[in-house]
């Protein structure tokens, strides 16, 4: 699929030639494009005169950068210590079951949800915690997962 890079013109203009811009630039580009494809990184390399290897190196180093298309809603399962001792694994399994994800898969086939883990969301008193987009849900139990997901599916008319 050909990607349209014209929407990146502004960002490139803003950052071109300045030192230390790679991370904020990639953050902005990911925001616009949804993820960082090989083509996107090659395009940025040409436009900014930064070696593609350097861009790829940074993109793969930080967990925030996504190299594959992401679902519409991002579900982050907190894997912090407090959540771990409060059965975060059970929550993740329940999410995987509810989203019908096979092992190794992280995005649903309808591209509605992507399931990821995060080191700690810093809401340890509400453990176990998940975050869907910018909303945090705490004190969860595996049984309550489908009720939360229904709300998002409902908005999509599914």
């Amino acid at each position, binding site marked *: 699929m050909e990607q349209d890079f014209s929407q990146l013109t502004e960002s490139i203009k803003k950052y071109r030639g300045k*030192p*230390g*811009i*790679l*991370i*904020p630039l*990639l*953050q902005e580009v990911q925001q616009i494009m949804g993820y960082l494809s090989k083509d996107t990184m090659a395009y940025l390399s040409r436009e900014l005169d930064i070696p593609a290897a350097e861009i790829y*190196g*940074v993109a793969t*180093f*930080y*967990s*925030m*950068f996504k190299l594959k298309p992401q679902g519409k809603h991002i579900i982050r399962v907190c*894997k*912090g*210590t*407090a959540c*771990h*001792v*409060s059965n975060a694994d059970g929550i993740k399994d329940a999410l995987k079951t509810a989203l019908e994800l096979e092992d190794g898969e992280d995005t649903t086939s309808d591209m509605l949800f992507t399931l990821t883990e*995060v*080191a*700690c*969301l*810093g*809401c*340890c*008193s*509400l*453990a176990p*915690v998940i975050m869907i987009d*910018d*909303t*945090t*849900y*705490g004190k969860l139990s595996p049984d309550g997962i489908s009720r939360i997901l229904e709300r998002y599916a409902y908005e999509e008319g599914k």
Partner: protein
Amino acid sequence: MNEITVKVGMASCGIAAGASEVYEVLARRQKESGGFKLVSTACIGMCFEEPIVEFSGGKLGTISLGAVNPAKVEEHLRDYLDAKLPDANIILADHYDGKYNELLRGQTRIVLRNCGVIDPKSIDDYEAHGGYTALRKALTMDPEKVVEEVKASGLRGRGGAGFSTGLKWSFAARAQGKKKYVICNADEGDPGAFMDRSTLEGDPHNVIEGMIIGAYAMGADEGYIYCRAEYPMAIRHLTIAIQKAEEKGYLGKNILGSDFSFELHIKEGAGAFVCGEETALMQSIEGKRGMPTIRPPFPAERGLWGCPTNINNVETWANITYIINNGSSAFRKIGTENSTGTKVFALAGKIAGSGLIEVPMGIELRDVIYKVGGGMKTDKPFKAVQMGGPSGGCIPASLLDTIVDYDSINATGAIMGSGGMVVMDSGTCMVDVARFFLNFTQNESCGKCTFCRIGTRRMLEILTRITEGKGEPEDLDKLEELASNIIKGSLCGLGQTAPNPVLTTLRYFRDEYLAHIEEKRCPAGVCTALLRYEVIPEKCIGCTACSRKCPVSCISGKVKEVHHIDQDKCIKCGACYSACKFDAIRKG
């Protein structure tokens, strides 16, 4: 009479618990009828009771209510206006008999003094609480005098390692160079720690003011706050605070009419734990992969973009205003000889009062957990407290009389760390905890040093094997050998401390490792592969609930007869255990 003020705790944790709904109800009410001032404040620390609403200015004085229901909050307001005390159950703290008065009395608040008190988005509110007076005072002092004052206070780096802050400042102050930087490390990555998030969300100006003072003392004219992107509210509050401080002339050119200028930026992290290490953090600000570099040269000589740089953690910066305003001797009065001041802890895990606390150094761990923290959450007994996250260790019950200071905590094999304190009860498996942390460090190792990259992986494999019941007797020796090599062969703090969770659990909970290896048994009943579910014949009434839930149909038995689990077929999913309403299934 004072104006009635209603404060709603609107930090990340409050909002996750439903504080926005409570605030909306109050905002609507205020728009309709007025009669009170509505303030959104941040975290007051009692996260376990969110959403929290505080009323003040009325005949009853100040009352905090916890677990406030949006449907009830108007009623609470009406009662307060009528000077009618609400149901005692929801009163957290007041002049009467709030259930957590005791909990608050054990604390000394320096860093968190404004958190949950002021509106973090209002610079006027911060100024009304003594904000920016320390900066005014510092600007009348010689820069060297400011460094001296911080040195004399005995303040040690709150990021974990505990190096003398004043000494660190003096290196950067002495360093030659036209351009210098100060950096605030807000890349709080330890799982189970949220002190810095709460501090930045609740009182961003205090950190900023500390940084301006530091920049003045060391001769820096530019600074960065490197903050985790997972903390959107902290970044939002910092952005507002920096903008307001610029408008008021606390930041920018010729601060308060002096010839000192200072510019401050926010850098968002992109998700890499190792960036909490100072040299890796600077690499990341420069837009590179965040990999640590060899020291020396130390950042004070050659740091960001090759210039002398001083990096301190959020909590360290947040102590500066107090020290300047009250003098180093007032600060020294708090705490112990070698660990002065207070420490903020994020209490989490199996503790009743999970949340944010600030206690004087020198307090016993027992008092932190049982007095300030309100004791255990359930009937299960205390087993260990984990301090210092992936770099720290587990302190057992027998060492609960250890006092909170850098040297005493180090002696246990754990570290003070940045302040995460996760309490564990008898239902926590210590081998599983060690495996959890190793999994974390193994994932987060940047890969530069071989021992850290591969050594942690080998340790994780051994630990996983043990939790799966495939442990071998020589595994413990192998773990210890690997641990000592990783400590020696790693460049930065991540690798040097990665084995700590394993070493401390081996030291204090060796029998638990042995139970896994020799008896193929998990005493805490956590490691799935080692679990066994059995029906207790005396308690089973034959209701068939378990056999109906079993996904592999391995439970046999007729109605009203004792059931039986076929161990060969059982996949140990625990469905029967949760389904049984008569506690007739034993897990172990």
